[in-house]
């Protein structure tokens, strides 16, 4: 199937967003956001895949052999690092929210106090 990986991408985004919307716990909400974000890995690697292509490492293949696209793989690597950094920052905000308001339920964090 030519479009199956792209359908998977759409599915991961929607499932993750549903989790973010219905979540009753900040940590769970952050994990849902990671799910949404991980759809980009599937998208990037799916877009760059070439049927029958080798990995883009030139040990035993010629420089003109058919390989999958190395540019999107480098982009996926960037993606992973940024995700880890953003997750860490969000988790520290969750820690602070729990300290200040005594709850992790986003529905109870309705009013922002100065």
């Amino acid at each position, binding site marked *: *199937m*030519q*479009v*199956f*990986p*792209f*359908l998977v*991408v*759409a599915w991961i*985004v*929607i499932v993750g*967003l*549903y989790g973010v*919307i*219905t979540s009753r716990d900040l940590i769970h909400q952050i994990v849902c956001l990671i799910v949404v974000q991980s759809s980009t890995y599937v998208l990037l690697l*799916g*877009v*760059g*895949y*070439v*049927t029958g292509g080798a*990995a*883009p*490492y*030139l*040990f035993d293949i010629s*420089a*003109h*052999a058919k*390989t*999958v*696209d*190395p*540019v*999107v*793989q*480098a982009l996926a*690597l*960037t993606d*992973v*690092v*940024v995700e*880890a*950094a*953003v997750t*860490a*920052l969000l*988790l*520290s*905000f969750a*820690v*602070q929210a*729990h*300290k*200040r*308001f*005594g*709850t992790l339920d986003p*529905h109870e964090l309705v009013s922002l106090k100065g």
Partner: protein
Amino acid sequence: MTPRQRLWLFALGAAGLVACYLWAFAGLPGFGNYPGPYGPAIMSRVIAQTNATGAVSAINFEYRGFDTVGEEFILFTAAAGMSVVLRRLRGEREGQSSPAPEAASRERPATSSSVRVVSLLLVGPTAVIGWWLATHAQTNPSGGFQGGVILATAFFLVYLSGEFIVFRRLRPDAVLDVAEAVGAGGFAAVGVTALALSLPYLYNYLPLGTIPGAVSSSGTIALISFLVGIEVAAAFVLIIGELLDQTLLRRGVHGEGSS
């Protein structure tokens, strides 16, 4: 807005999003038929231009090097931001603002000796693998980002094995701050050095070596990858250490350094 209304709104938005997605995907060239010109162009030139066999690392640290500088500073900023966000309350005594006393008084199972032995045994190999990955970006699917994360894992295996005091000693904040600054600043400095030699920013001015893919090949790619490895390892030890500090604060465990 009630949760029910919110769900309906989400269903509406999601339906629109899915429709746009499918429309957009219908215009893609199809799985396995990627027509992009950059991949083949880089693959056919990467050895001649950089002597690196790992094309992904060559892209990250050479062709897209400027982009990776920004990426590294995202990580740097996140680690700094976490320290700032979590530091504000560090001076507070526990109990003053701990709204979950049931969590603090919960019984904690002791670390089993099998966990201790296995994680202590894994510390050495993990550190070696991390170091090897960080220094072999030019040859194979490795690089500073992967290696740095695995190096940081070695530190947390020490923590997992219950050696909290040792862990604390392995994680002096001053040394980590310096390591992070050297990693992030070193990357930028490699680029500026090229400017000083009146070459473009991040130009590969080091000797490329003679054997493609050898450890001594590929010039600045290997150097930058190593610097990134240091930066990533330091940033992750700092980030996870900050979160662990919060847990330990709750539990009432105080190391020498925490006030």
